[in-house]
């Protein structure tokens, strides 16, 4: 969709006196876009409607499937109780902190490993094991060490995204053309200058990629963390709702979670577009 939009804009910019064929083409593109949007909306509404009708007609049991009107009611109730944004806020905060920390620390460690080939060789087997290990298994360890609270959740998030970031960024560094590095060296450049003049700017697409991966991973980390320890947040609402068989609460939380995660991912995509515009 984004591509279509970009296409039509650049076309318009190129052609000053628009020919009838081109006008026709632009019209077709616009109609198709509207058509796609309408169908998308239709699917969404139909699904909601079916869900509501089936639940009302007791074709499915709303006690275990919940239903849109109940989700809405739950949301309003949470809002009236003043806890809706508190739960959303806590989870988002944990996700953002874990996400930023994972990306920054991962990049720093990758720089260290690039800087010292020796260190890289020594640490390689540990990285392989840590990368393979399902980090969720460490959850109980973190709780014992750090205590059941937001800190443990953030560490959980970090554990999930850190190693992936390190490997991704380091791999990015190692695939950079050696000749570009040689170029900096021919001007008498130091290792630090190689890093700042070539490696970091050239790794820009790698960073964006790492960010995109980490957005997803940090949500996994936060929800797992909240499942294990928390007393607040969307993950907590889901677990609590499941335990007391309040599927309305579970469904509501899952829907909010979906929206929040999407917003954050789109944020990164937007950031990428802003930066790309300035770079090429």
């Amino acid at each position, binding site marked *: 969709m984004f591509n279509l939009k970009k296409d039509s804009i650049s076309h318009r910019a190129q052609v000053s006196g628009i020919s009838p064929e081109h006008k026709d083409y632009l019209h077709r593109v616009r109609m198709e876009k509207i058509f796609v949007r309408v169908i998308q909306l239709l699917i969404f509404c139909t699904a909601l409607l079916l869900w509501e009708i089936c639940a009302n007609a007791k074709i499915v049991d709303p006690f275990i499937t919940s239903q849109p009107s109940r989700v809405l009611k739950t949301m309003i109730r949470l809002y009236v109780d003043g806890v809706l944004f508190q739960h959303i806020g806590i989870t988002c905060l944990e996700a953002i902190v874990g996400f930023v920390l994972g990306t920054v620390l991962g990049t720093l460690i990758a720089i260290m490993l690039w800087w010292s080939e020796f260190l890289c060789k020594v640490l390689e087997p540990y990285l392989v094991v840590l990368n393979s290990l399902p980090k969720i298994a460490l959850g109980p360890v973190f709780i014992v060490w750090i205590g059941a609270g937001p800190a443990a959740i953030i560490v959980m998030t970090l554990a999930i995204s850190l190693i992936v970031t390190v490997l991704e960024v380091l791999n990015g560094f190692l695939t950079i053309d050696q000749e570009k590095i040689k170029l900096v060296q*021919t001007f*008498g450049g130091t290792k630090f*200058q190689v890093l700042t*003049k070539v490696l970091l700017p*050239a790794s820009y697409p790698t960073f964006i990629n790492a960010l995109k991966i980490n957005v997803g991973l940090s949500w996994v980390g936060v929800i797992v963390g909240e499942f294990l320890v928390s007393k607040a947040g969307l993950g907590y609402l889901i677990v609590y709702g499941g335990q007391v068989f309040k599927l309305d609460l579970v469904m509501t939380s899952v829907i909010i979670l979906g929206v929040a995660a999407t917003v954050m991912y789109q944020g990164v995509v937007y950031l990428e577009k802003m930066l790309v515009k300035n770079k*090429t």
Partner: protein
Amino acid sequence: MKPVVEVHNVGMKYQSLNGEITALDNINFSVNDGEFVSIVGPSGCGKSTLLSIISGLIFSTSGTVFLSGEKVMGTSPKIGYMLQKDHLFNWRTIYQNVMLGLEIRKNVTRSTKEHAIKLLRTYGLYEFKDKYPNQLSGGMRQRVALIRTLVTDPQILLLDEAFSALDFQTRLVVNDDIYDIIKKENKTALLVTHDISESISMADRVVLLSKRPGTVKNIYEINLNCDNRTPLSSRETPEFRYYFQEIWKGLDVHV
């Protein structure tokens, strides 16, 4: 005339787990001030190795290189190195690319900035200074790469197959272009190439290396009968064919 570059008994052995590779063996030659010398030799004979040693990027395992009488102990601001590809950074504008060497040498001043602008202007790239490299043609990019080197004001230019990434026509034009710039700016140049015609068309002397381990097999003085010599006009002189035959024989290519 006092030589600017003296290569004295230089030898190079690379070590690897599979054994030892002797890339260069007892190389001797020198380059005079303002001279243009080409180095030709079969693939893998150590031409790039030789340039890297002269530039101080790597150290020979035997022998010495002198720049204006001083022993090479590391990279030197006297040397400008042009690689096979232009390696313009596509995240920098043309002007920012040109400034790279000065930034690295921490020598960005009013006068060096003006020098950069002047060079861009002289060689027809001023209007492109705020464009990005992917908006330029191959020949223009190569010129930007040359300016990036020239702006640091090196005395000696090392060109490692600097034109081989270009298509033939562009290459002829860029040869002329860059030859002109090098002569105008009064630089000493050392050009490595696979292309015998290119080596003759630009050089005052051609150094022929043998296949690995590279040794100096012969040095040809190029005397062409033409006034206002340019690489293109060189190719049309009667002597050109003669040198070509000689060097071709010397290269001793078996297919």
